[in-house]
């Protein structure tokens, strides 16, 4: 066993960290209350030139990495610097269905993704699907072998308003309940997008489709959806770990400097023990996330068991860390001006994307029975 990063990954980590640090401070990502960088063309271009998007794609999809460890490494750093940019929606959720299905066929599109020229979004969630990734009431009617028309409503789609192309799941009108995956142009006729920010400064949108022209990616897309959602859940877990580290460190620093009753509040045992608990639980989450990263492309049951363990902990411990960080800081952590408040919002809301802690607990119950 070797827990050290390879030389390439160490380098990737250091460069990415430096770049995000400078972007975060230069663009005041944090001070702006987690302002979303989706529309910041300069940032996205620089990120792509640095190879940050390509690092999330495998070599045969025109990328430089794409392994579970690459994903975890980069998303942990995105969390550390509270970067709200379309890495997840474009490079993971949008791109993975394409390269899983056919790297040749989508080579040009994927190359544009890597180069930062094209943004994508994955529309699988619906008003009544909650976290069920295989649920689709949206329907796909065939026009010819490759072309379809989609009708339905997709809910809280990350990156929707900003996507050049959308990957949309739909029930096949002529199939045995199969769920297909389709590529839809962001400006297609019959497509209506209501774009909004989320409370944790993500760019998202609800989408209404009415006989929207679509190209079929896969007529049986279930396995692709599961693999993609697993990758997304891994990225969110890693991002959560990055957020947690910063919040824990900020809290330790705060309790050392904040004086009440004539001494630093960090000198009280009740505070010390709570911070020890945080440290312990964060290390648990980090460990589960490493394990999930290593299993991202394992057989489905093995993969999902480890992904669900990580995402359940990210949700459970994320809530604990966010609540304790606010409580131990006191009122100051409730202020817009305090960075940690925006970290807390993001960390808490990560539990609302791609399955919450209950959803993943149930997956675990099913897979470990």
């Amino acid at each position, binding site marked *: 066993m070797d827990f050290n990063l390879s030389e390439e990954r160490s380098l990737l980590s250091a460069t990415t960290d430096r770049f995000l640090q400078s972007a975060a401070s230069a663009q005041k990502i944090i001070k702006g209350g987690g302002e979303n960088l989706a529309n910041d063309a300069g940032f996205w271009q620089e990120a792509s030139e640095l190879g940050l998007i390509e690092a999330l794609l495998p070599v045969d999809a025109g990328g430089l990495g794409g392994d579970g460890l690459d994903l975890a490494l980069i998303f942990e750093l995105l969390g550390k610097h509270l970067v709200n940019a379309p890495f997840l929606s474009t490079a993971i959720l949008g791109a993975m269905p394409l390269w899983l299905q056919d790297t040749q066929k989508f080579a040009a599109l994927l190359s544009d993704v890597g180069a930062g020229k094209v943004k994508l979004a994955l529309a699988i969630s619906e008003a009544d699907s909650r976290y069920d990734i295989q649920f689709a009431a949206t329907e796909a009617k065939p026009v010819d072998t490759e072309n379809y028309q989609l009708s339905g409503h997709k809910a809280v789609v990350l990156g929707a308003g900003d996507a050049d192309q959308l990957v949309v799941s739909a029930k096949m009108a002529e199939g045995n309940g199969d769920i297909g995956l389709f590529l839809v142009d962001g400006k297609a006729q019959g497509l209506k997008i209501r774009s909004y920010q989320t409370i*944790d400064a993500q760019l998202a949108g*609800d989408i209404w489709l009415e006989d929207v022209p679509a190209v079929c990616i896969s007529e049986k897309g279930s396995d692709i959806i599961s693999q993609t959602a697993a990758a997304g859940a891994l990225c969110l877990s890693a991002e959560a770990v990055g957020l947690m580290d910063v919040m824990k460190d900020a809290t330790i620093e705060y309790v050392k400097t904040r004086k009440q009753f004539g001494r630093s509040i960090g000198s009280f045992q009740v505070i010390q023990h709570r911070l020890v608990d945080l440290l312990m639980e964060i290390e648990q989450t980090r460990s589960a996330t490493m394990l999930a990263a290593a299993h991202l492309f394992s057989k489905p049951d093995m993969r999902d068991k480890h992904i669900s363990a990580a995402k359940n902990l990210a949700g459970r411990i994320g809530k604990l860390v966010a609540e304790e960080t606010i*409580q131990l800081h006191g009122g100051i952590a409730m202020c817009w001006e305090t960075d940690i408040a925006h970290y807390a919002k993001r960390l808490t809301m990560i539990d609302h994307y791609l399955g919450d802690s209950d959803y993943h607990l149930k997956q675990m119950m099913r897979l470990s029975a």
Partner: protein
Amino acid sequence: MDLNYSESERAFRDEVRDWLAQNLPPALREKVIKHKRLSKEDHHLWHEKLRSRGWLCWHWPAEHGGTGWTPVQKHIFEEEMIDAGAPRIIPFGPNMLGPVLIEFGSEAHKKTYLPRILNCEDWWCQGYSEPGSGSDLASLKTKAERRGDVYIVNGQKTWTTLGHFADKMFCLVRTDPNADKPQKGISFLLIDMDSPGIEVRPIYTLDGEHEVNEVWLTDVEVPVENLVGLENEGWTYAKYLLTYERTGIAGVGYSKQLLAHLKSMANRRKEGGQPLAQDPLFAAKLAEVEIDLMAMDMFNLRTVSAAGAGKAPSAESSLLKIKGTQIRQRISELLRQAVGPYACPYISEQFDEGYNEPPIGPEDAMPLARQYFNLRKLSIYGGSNEIQKNIVAKTVLGL
């Protein structure tokens, strides 16, 4: 022992309920239910209605123009108000300063200020916390120096709720910096907010809202007759007021309302084609918090009744504060969880009057994440839950 309301208590409940049904303006009720922002005028309108019925200062004894209600009647009133969707009574004048002046104020104070609170002429705010004095409130540094007929006040207060609406502030100041204990040497002053040298600066909270403020005081002149009680004895009055603040903070009525909302939401949201309320994991959490709340309701009544009419609640009110806020925070967490992905969308304008765009997802989903984050304050303010535990350990357990 009889755990049911008596006939007269039931009649009282019906009286309150009927009055609310007839007097709470539907537009105001809708704003409250939909978590819309309330303006100063909204609060005034509601205070005025309550005043006209003689219920604004419901905590006060009858001889001072209050209701003289028993603890059980007060409890009923509080619950019915929340249940009806009424705006909360802004507590600083009616619930906080009023009882302090009645107990410790001079005849002149009572004559001057109590009628003005009763008639909603003054909007009070609370000058307690300072940037360096939160949990350790007694370490406060805002200084008042006696110069002839006035005190000259210098310092900074913070977390001043709705201070931007206030006409007056009751304020803790240090009058004797050389006292042998920090609790000695504190005085309780009444300050006009339009005095020269006062500046109110907004604090925006993590949800982008403006409810609390910083209040800066620079060479503010306060007439000596605005001193409540004795100089350097203000800590006694401050603590008396805090026990009043603490009971309301248990918020059992609010928790009941939140729980009803949670149940409604859990029955409407689907998970795998079934209502979320039938999901064993979620149903277990819901049942657990309902158990906690049922017990809390009784715990609250036991403690409140034990206090007796017109008396300050005992140190046990600290337990109510801790458990009550834990329960309310837990329900707000489950509500956020219940709406799933629809907890995320956030359009700030939706909380303004007159916003008419269709909702995103269920109509009542968007306020839920904001509510969860906002209610983190419950375990921080009014004496953090950690401080409450210190009080209980010392006062109740004798440790």
